[in-house]
Structures are given as structure tokens and as C-alpha cells.
């Protein structure tokens, strides 16, 4: 388990501040992605690239909307979907980071 989580050490630049109570409650939810995926780092980077892809698509369509090539509905749909992808990516990241912190604070 620990060596699976180890690759995470590099991507985690700014660990979020979480209360001990949060960490205890968050532990169960985040343990499963690590057990399934190859490693945490790969999972995080694919999460990030998904979010970046959605934002890029939203930017392209917004620009087309400004030019008048895309309808208002299309622009709103793309931007909202990017926003949602980003929100879920951030929520998952926070969970993963708090699980990592919890394990790193464990006294052996």
C-alpha cells in the first residue's frame, strides 16, 4: 500500500489543510482508487489532463461563440461541462491528498 502511494510525493506540492476529523472520515472513500489503479500519480495526472482537456474545449467553443460561429447554447454547455469536470477533479484531489496526509502521519 505505502509504495503504491509513494509516487504521490512529487505531485503533492501544496497539501491542503484538513482537520484530523476530516482525515478520519475521508480515509474509507479514497482507499479504493489506489487499490484498483496502477499508482496514485498516474491517476492524478489523468485526472488533471481530463480537466485540462475539458477547459481547452470550452475555451475553443467560447472563442467560436465570440466570433459568432457557435450558438449561445453550445458555449454555455461547453463551459458548464468544463466547470463540472474541474470541480470533480478538485474534489477527488482533495480527498486523495487528505488520505495521503493521514497515512503519512500514521505512527508505526
Amino acid at each position, binding site marked *: 500500500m505505502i509504495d503504491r502511494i509513494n509516487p504521490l510525493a512529487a505531485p503533492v506540492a501544496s497539501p491542503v489543510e484538513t482537520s484530523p476529523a476530516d482525515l478520519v*472520515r*475521508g480515509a474509507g*472513500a479514497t482507499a479504493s482508487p489506489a487499490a484498483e489503479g496502477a499508482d496514485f500519480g498516474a491517476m492524478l495526472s489523468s485526472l488533471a489532463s481530463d480537466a485540462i482537456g475539458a477547459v481547452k474545449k470550452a475555451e475553443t467553443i467560447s472563442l467560436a461563440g465570440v466570433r459568432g460561429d457557435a*450558438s449561445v*447554447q*453550445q458555449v454555455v*454547455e461547453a463551459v*458548464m*461541462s468544463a466547470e*463540472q469536470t474541474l*470541480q*470533480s477533479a478538485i*474534489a*477527488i484531489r*482533495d*480527498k486523495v491528498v487528505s488520505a495521503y496526509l493521514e497515512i503519512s502521519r500514521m505512527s508505526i
Partner: protein
Amino acid sequence: MFDPLQVTLKIGASGLEAQSKRMRVVSENLANAQSTGHTPGADPYTRKTISFESEFDEAMGASFVKVAGIGRNHSPYRVEYSPGHPAADAKGFVKLPNVDVLVEVADMREANRSYEANLQVIKQAREMISMTIDLLRSG
């Protein structure tokens, strides 16, 4: 495979698009309610109609709405006696468009209501998605 809530957003968007095309047709009809021909006996603007159909998307397993086609309404034109008009025929009658402004306004209201309903669907689905993502945050 597809998240039903995401599919709901896409279906709602197809409804918005269909209703906005309907508004376009209504606006054409209203704007041209007085458009006559400009040669003697020429036909005036003919009212446009729009019809919708459902389109089944195999990949998402859902029915979207799309515009089936924009047609012409060939009901008789209104006729008015106006000998001085450039489009008046030999007897002095001018053909006016077969657009009934009241019908167009009613159609516009219906497009507006339908657009609102689709927007409401999108809003609700978004809220449900956000609520679910928020489970991760507070938990």
C-alpha cells in the same frame, strides 16, 4: 456507459436549440407580415412553418429532438384593395402575406415556455450532479 444526468444535459441542449430555431421562424414571419411583392400581381411573403421530430441516438440510448424541416404554409393570401400599390393587379387588388400575427405571437409564447422548461431541466440536472460531487467535499 453514459451518465444519465450528462445525457439529460445534452437532451436539454437539443431542446434549447430546437426552440431557438422555432423563434427564428416566428421572427421571420412577424417581420414579414407586411412584405408584399413589388411587381403587379406578384406573390407576397409566404408564411414559414417549422416541425420537430425525435432522433434516437444509438450511442447514448436516448431520444433527442431535432428540426424535421422548415416548410411553407400555402394557405390563401389576404387580399386588399389598394390600386396605388406597386404590387396591385389589374383590378387594384394587392396580395398580402398569409401571416396571422396573433397565431405567430401564440407560437412565440409557446417557444418561450418550451425553452424555459428545457432550461429548467438543465438547471435541475446540474444541481443533482453538483450535489453528488459535493458529497466528496464534505465527507
